[in-house]
């Protein structure tokens, strides 16, 4: 005997029905219940509409400049953030271009000890790009750990205690940490 579907069972099988996974016999029971139950029918109607809407959402494409930035990165340049961040612009691109040229030529970078040999402007530009690269690494790692090094880590953990130590040595009261400028 084919038992009638109850409302709470309907909600359970409704999802499988939407996925097309419900066996024919179960589908039939479901349809019979929906004919008698406006509430469940409305639930299926809403569920179906949501699914149709989601399935009609377009696949979005990224702006072409994203790919261009990836190409620049592949050529060995530190890629500035988009304009909403501080953009270092032309000077970074210049340093980066010099870096890219040096890399493309397979050159190693040289650094010079004290006054022994003075680096050329190209070498200084290359080293500048490397220094920025090192900073970018710190930024990447701290972003990945979802911490802003400036705000969370240093201010609360070490910079404040260091300041207190200095104040004690000088015999003056500790600075008001809440006013500490970052």
């Amino acid at each position, binding site marked *: 005997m084919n038992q009638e579907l109850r409302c709470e069972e309907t*909600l359970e099988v409704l*999802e499988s029905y*939407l*996925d097309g996974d419900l066996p024919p016999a179960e589908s039939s029971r479901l349809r019979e219940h929906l004919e008698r139950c406006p509430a469940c029918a409305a*639930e299926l109607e*809403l*569920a179906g*509409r*949501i*699914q149709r*809407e*989601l*399935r*009609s*959402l*377009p*696949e*979005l*494409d*990224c*702006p072409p400049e*994203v*790919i261009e*930035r*990836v*190409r620049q*990165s*592949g050529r060995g340049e530190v*890629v500035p953030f*988009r304009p*909403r961040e501080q953009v270092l612009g032309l000077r970074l691109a210049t340093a980066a271009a010099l870096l890219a040229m040096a890399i493309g030529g397979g050159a190693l970078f040289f650094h010079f000890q004290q006054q022994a040999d003075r680096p050329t402007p190209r070498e200084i530009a290359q080293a500048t790009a490397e220094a920025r690269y090192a900073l970018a690494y710190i930024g990447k790692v701290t*972003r*990945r750990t*979802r*911490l*802003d090094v400036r705000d969370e880590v240093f201010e609360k953990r070490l910079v404040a205690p260091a300041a207190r130590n200095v104040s004690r040595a000088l015999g003056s009261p500790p600075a008001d940490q809440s006013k500490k400028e970052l």
Partner: protein
Amino acid sequence: MLTAFEDTAQRHRRRVYSFARYLLSNPEEAEDVTQEVLLRLWRHQSGLDEERLGSWLLRVTRNACYDLLRKRRSDAAVVVPGAGLDGEEARQAASAEPDPQARAEATDFRRRLLAALTELSEPYKSVVILREVQGLPHREIGEALGIPEVTVRVHLHRGRRKLRERLREVSS
């Protein structure tokens, strides 16, 4: 090698960007994530199995989006539900309707749906996007997210149920 990488990047960038965009509801952050993911592809491409490349890209994208979403929460940033998603996509829904009132209602429904999708929590959101928006089969979603296929179905069902609950709340 640059050409081969570009070819791979072109083949996958829409899927990566789309996934990030629907997860984050923020076009700028989605661009950042896409750039990071494709850069990581650049670094690892020689070690990646071509068959698993699609799943790998989706997993890296999801993780990168997670990082941003966690940082967003810790920064207490204000996120407007559906922000960045409702303009173009909602208008597409409206344009298919025959009369103005139906068009307005369709636009409104899609906007509310996109807002509900923005508010949907993980892991349901990823699964709903990959299955219903991007049309991936359950097996591929499981590979991408590192979960069994049966768990994919469970998350999908719960995600869709939560969307309905949210839409009913908003309507009432």
